[in-house]
């Protein structure tokens, strides 16, 4: 009776290993062979449910009318008959499935909305399951989107790094060639000309150690010809020194302070000996140009790029996956918070979605 290996070459997928079950997004195995196997995907099932409720509920709908309403090519009466039957019966398995995967808050909210919208108690149980499945699906999709977003932002950050590295090399080249920083500046930067000479500020580079930067920084500044150092670095050192004394930058911003990705990434890399020597160049270029005007605002400017070592600790703890380490650091707030946001989004959109889907049940 049951031939798991036999598959018809149809456009619909079959999933013969699975036992028969009535979950919305897995295969539906028909026990009698000659019929083609149909995979009830979530989308398909959604349309099915839509059609059923349009027709007045699983008790009123017939396979024929459902087929007409759904208008899906290739869907036969046989498929629908069987699916409808399961749909009518199908409360228990759904509930078990969903108990494991739904958060209480979301289930409660979808339940609540369901109570408001369902017209008959017979529909109540089944439509609740549909909604829970929908919420589930959305939640998973959101998590996927979040993961992709992190990777994409990280990619942009890496790309920015290449731009800045190139610029730093170009600048270093200009500096070397000219031998005087005045020429490298370009005539139009106002306020740059009053930067003092480099030498006295260099020892303060050691302050950068608090950010995890180690030997190669000092190595770097020993190698560079001091007189040709990009003028940005002068104020940079000022700002770095000053910024060390600043309180936590979070206290400056609103609670939801935006992310400072690329530089976090760079600062993490500074701790690794493998990092290119030029890294600290654009790290400094990164920070220093912000402090174009001197004065007390230098502190505030460099805060944007200030990283507390404690943050990296947080990130390491919260995301064990190495692949995500870089992207985890990219976030401000912490990944935990991102997860909270996702949950909130999911809860809200769960409510939204259940509301949206209330009309078929109304």
């Amino acid at each position, binding site marked *: 009776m049951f031939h798991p290996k036999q598959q018809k070459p149809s456009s619909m997928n079959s999933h013969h290993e699975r036992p028969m079950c009535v979950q919305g997004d897995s295969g539906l195995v028909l026990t009698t062979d000659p019929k083609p196997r149909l995979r009830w995907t979530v989308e398909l099932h959604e349309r099915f449910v839509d059609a059923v409720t349009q027709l007045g509920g699983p008790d009123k709908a017939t396979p024929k009318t459902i087929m007409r309403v759904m208008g899906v090519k290739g869907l036969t009466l046989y498929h629908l008959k069987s699916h409808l039957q399961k749909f009518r019966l199908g409360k228990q398995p759904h509930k078990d499935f969903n108990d494991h995967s739904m958060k209480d808050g979301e289930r409660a909210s979808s339940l609540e909305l369901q109570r408001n919208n369902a017209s008959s108690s017979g529909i109540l149980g089944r439509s609740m399951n549909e909604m829970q499945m929908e919420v589930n699906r959305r939640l998973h999709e959101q998590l996927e989107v979040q993961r992709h977003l992190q990777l994409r932002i990280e990619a*942009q950050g890496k790309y920015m790094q290449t731009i800045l590295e190139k610029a730093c090399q170009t600048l270093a080249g200009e500096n070397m060639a000219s031998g005087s920083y005045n020429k490298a500046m370009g005539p139009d930067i106002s306020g740059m000309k009053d930067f003092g000479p480099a030498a006295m500020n260099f020892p303060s580079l050691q302050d950068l150690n608090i950010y995890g930067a180690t030997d190669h920084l000092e190595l770097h500044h020993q190698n560079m010809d001091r007189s040709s150092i990009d003028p*940005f670095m002068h104020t940079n050192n000022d700002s770095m020194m000053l910024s060390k004394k600043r309180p936590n930058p979070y206290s*400056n911003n609103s609670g939801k302070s935006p992310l*400072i990705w690329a530089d976090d990434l760079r600062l993490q890399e500074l701790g690794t000996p493998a990092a290119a020597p030029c890294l600290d160049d654009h790290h400094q270029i990164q920070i220093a140009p912000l402090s174009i005007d001197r004065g007390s605002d230098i502190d*505030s400017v460099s805060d944007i790029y200030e990283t507390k070592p404690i943050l990296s600790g947080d990130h390491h703890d919260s995301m064990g996956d190495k692949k995500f380490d870089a992207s985890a650091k990219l976030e401000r707030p912490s990944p935990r918070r991102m997860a909270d946001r996702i949950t909130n989004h999911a809860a809200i959109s769960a409510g939204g979605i259940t509301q949206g889907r209330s009309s078929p049940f109304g």
Partner: protein
Amino acid sequence: MAMVMDLDHFPNFSYATASTDDGCNWNYWSPVVDWEELSAGQEDFHHLIDSMVVQDVVLNQSPSPSIYQDYNNSSPDYNNSSPEYNMMTDDETNGSDDCKGLRLIHLLMAAAEALTGPNKSRELARVILVRLKELVSPNDGTNMERLAAYFTDALQGLLDGTACGGKNVPGGGCGHQYKEEHHQTEVLAAFQLLQDMSPYVKFGHFTANQAILEAVTHDRRVHIVDYDIMEGIQWASLMQALVSRKDGPPTPHLRITALSRGGSGRRSFGTIQETGRRLTAFAASIGQPFSFHQCRLDSDETFRPSSLKLVRGEALIFNCMLHLPHFSYRAPESIASFLSGSKTLNPRLITLVEEEMRSPSDEGFVGRFMDSLHHYSAVYDSLEAGFPMQGRARALVERVFLGPRIAGSLARIYRACGEEEWCSWGQWLSAVGFRPVNTSFANHCQAKLLLGLYNDGYRVEELSSNKLVLGWKSRRLLSASIWTSKDSDL
């Protein structure tokens, strides 16, 4: 002099959520300005403007010697202000700032009116601008003050006729020229800051990229024609996404053709060739099959579809980023040639990102001027809300990018004044016969997540099935829309 200011046409300067703060200094910028009330005192406005012209006039019985001289000191005595401002003093805490902000708006509006209104007077405009310049500076002060400084400069440019040289200059070069004056490092720093402090750039790029990804799921070759590739960062994340696709065919070959303007010399982000090299190197580093091409626009920046090299079987995408904050204004004719040219090639997808301005019916220059003021005020506020303490950083972004954009925006409005009806490029695409493509749930979700990483004040709306709009509080700022040509089957 009879200065008739028709206040009935002007919108309420009201932002919806004046009370939610989270560190956003919303109160400095008066939440509600009721123009109807102000219009009642038109005589007072005449008086006001007269007083602006004459120095050191004391308008009221306030003990402070001159209301103008006290501006920069933000004297607390200013709350006893002239009668027409009494309604504003209900804002207890930041009354003086509000008043100053309001006064600046009045002055700007008066200047705009003087430039183009029914009672045009260049002399009056000149005088008002002089007064404005005394009051504001692009580096200090509140958001409104800095914003007013840039608008003042822009108006001055219009007055002098130096703004973009008039109607027939292709490329709308003024914004472009501005940027050229900045040292490359400044531009890069400002760009990095812009991306870190605000979601505008990422929103535009990611929304377009997500739509592209969804449109090419089964393709082996993808060809993107990019109108203004700038520094190329948009493609970094697209490549990353293509490379890490789990299902479907292996990573498709990506070809990017960047349109270049002839003879524009060294641009702030480097030449097109450099961008190409960078992208090629990046693609190699992540294992993305890639090739880069350049296609020259004509001298008047017209796009010729025949100059593209196409490969059979490739999915053709036209990418049109127009109004990201670090972009300069391009001539409408050029953009039109690009979009209409694309139609002849039946692209799979057209991605369009443009600023979202209120579509003015017949508001004239002053109306659009005020709308532009409103627009950039929201942008400034959005930056400040996230980074209230980092004034210098914001001032840098404003100087390098936003200021030139303001100048470009005003020049564009000025040139278009009195011409045919204004419409957005999205409306234009629709009229020309492109079909909208729905933005997916994933795309919308991505946008919301992205904004959630920044300040709460950012909103994303789905204005139509194919358009996501990023806004700050109640002001819509940037829209990303997806289109396809009618004959291609998506």
